[in-house]
């Protein structure tokens, strides 16, 4: 691959693009010409590309270009916002989740993705799948439960220091750099959503040294409360939360209520129609917390309840 080496040595012309791309560090490409350098995309400036990604221009030795889609090149650096800004929420959005109980078989792929992405240890789970049974004669079913991101969140009401807060886009987040660890929010949450870092959280070393971000909730902090955050860093990139994309059975629909649409990755439907047609409900509606998470009842199931039993553990390991 002599081209690669050569090209790296002698960048020419306006190489700001090249710098951009070198920043990501793992792409070293020499690109030959496809034609003379021309103004690109001028004819459809207003159009929206499918994946909404920025484009990185890869400059070559002779000043010609081909593009490489940047969303495949880099991590989340495009959409980082300051922690102050992160308190406001993503403008114009109102995120909702719909969980279709008829499709869940306790595969726990959602939980695995969540654990992996948020660097959570075994005993700390932000997303749980509960074995539920509404009455003795009724059949049990599997109920995944993330944070319900209530619109009138009891946890936020009681926080003494604004450490947990409600954003305009519907998310309830926690500022682990402000939390004083009083655990009132844990007592106030009726959904057992919140967990507490009783000791120094277990994390990979490189995660410990990161600058704290409200939107990734990383690095996790000792003596503070944490919970499912709907992956706001993904949402900012207009990508779905990790549990949604990880689910093999399309249990989770996620979307923007302001757009009246939710998607489970494969299927995109109107939120209002989905809730009407499948009799959506919210867990413990009578408490008046107005959750952002809806459930579709476990009727006409895709899998028998027993299919989920192999993954079912009543306990996790002790600390």
């Amino acid at each position, binding site marked *: 691959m002599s081209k690669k080496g050569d090209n790296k040595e002698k960048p020419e012309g306006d190489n700001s693009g090249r710098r951009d791309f070198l920043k990501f560090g793992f792409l070293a490409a020499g*690109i030959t010409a496809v*034609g003379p350098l021309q103004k690109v995309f001028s004819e459809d400036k207003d*159009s*929206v590309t499918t994946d909404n990604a920025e484009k990185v221009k890869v400059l070559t030795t002779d000043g010609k270009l081909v*593009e490489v889609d940047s969303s495949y090149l880099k991590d989340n650096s495009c959409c980082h916002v300051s922690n102050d800004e992160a308190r406001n929420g993503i403008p114009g959005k109102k995120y909702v989740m719909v969980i279709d109980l008829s499709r869940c078989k306790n595969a726990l792929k959602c939980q695995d993705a969540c654990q992996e992405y948020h660097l959570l240890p075994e005993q700390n789970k932000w997303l749980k799948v509960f074995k539920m049974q509404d009455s003795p004669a009724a059949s049990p079913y599997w109920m995944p439960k993330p944070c319900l991101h209530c619109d009138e969140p009891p946890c936020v009401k009681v926080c003494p220091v604004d450490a947990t807060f409600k954003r305009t886009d519907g998310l309830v987040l926690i500022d682990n750099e402000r939390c004083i660890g009083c655990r009132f929010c844990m007592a106030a949450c009726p959904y057992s959503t919140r967990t507490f870092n009783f000791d120094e959280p277990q994390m990979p070393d490189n995660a410990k040294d990161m600058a704290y971000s409200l939107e990734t909730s990383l690095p996790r902090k000792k003596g503070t409360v944490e919970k499912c955050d709907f992956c706001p860093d993904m949402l900012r990139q207009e990508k779905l939360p990790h549990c949604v994309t990880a689910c093999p059975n399309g249990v989770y629909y996620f979307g923007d209520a302001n757009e009246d649409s939710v*998607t489970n990755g494969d299927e*995109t439907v109107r939120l209002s129609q989905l809730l009407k047609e499948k009799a959506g409900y919210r867990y413990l509606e009578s408490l008046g917390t107005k959750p952002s998470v809806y459930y579709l009842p476990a009727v006409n199931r895709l899998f028998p309840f027993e299919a989920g039993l192999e993954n079912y553990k009543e306990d996790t390991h002790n600390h």
Partner: protein
Amino acid sequence: MKNKFFILLAKIKRHRVISIFLTIYAFLIIGEKIALSQENEESPDKLSLSMNLSTRLTNNIRSIKIEVSRKENEKFVSVDNLKSPFNLYLNEVKKYDPIEGTGWLGNLILNKKGEGVFRLTSNFNDLTANMHEYTFIVKMDSDPIYEDVEDQITVSVAKLKLDYLGDDSIKTATATLLAYNEDELIPVTDIEVKLYIKRTFNFLPFGEEGLSTDENGEVSAELPLDIPGNQNGTITIAAKLEDDDSYGTIEVIKVVPWSVLPFVNAKRERTLWSSGDNAPLPLVIASVTIIAFIWGTIFYLVYLLFKIKKLSRIP
């Protein structure tokens, strides 16, 4: 060697896209592969890869996506640490030839998931205006860990148009699919083209399910009138021909005017779950009044304390 052959067969099967062109050359490639794998037998550490190519034409911009995976214990696993570049060629594996418009287009390194996308510039279409069919060849060689891998995909050129007609009572989108017959663009009939509204995370389909193009190459559907658009009074609609064997994916995305605005909830209300500086006024007034009254009295008591001290100095 047998394996290699089956993998290749599998590849051909997977990309039903691949044209006769590929089948003719297949045996030649097999020969090459056999040679390659013989080399590899000398360094048995190298792992074999399987590659999946797809093309997409979005608003006339073509991209080629590579997805690479590896089979381990009958399961596909992600490929990491793939540091060697993947090269993209048009029609022939050779240096770029500006006269023929064929040859090496560029290369890239895959991301952590083993994926990469080449996005060709818009002038690619102009430069290749005389071609009605492309064969893209992607090749990776000289990796220390993985075996060399090569795959190709052939697509025919087609054009998809999206028209929107809207008045107060009815709003219709029409997609038209045209393809080359000799050098002439003619309608493509009986192919499923879907119509969508662009939403944040995905495309929301509208109109009847499973609509196929008619004799004019057209598909049309009414938009739901109550669906919220974008903040700026527009809505983004799209027409898509998805994963077609000869044309790949073709999509047209278009912004059109729309009157239903989304509900915006940016208002910061004074509620019990607002931030501290946005507390409900009655609560603020009540607590400030009570605190002021009680602490006022406490300060008066402290004043009395000092009065006692002062009294001691009076004879």
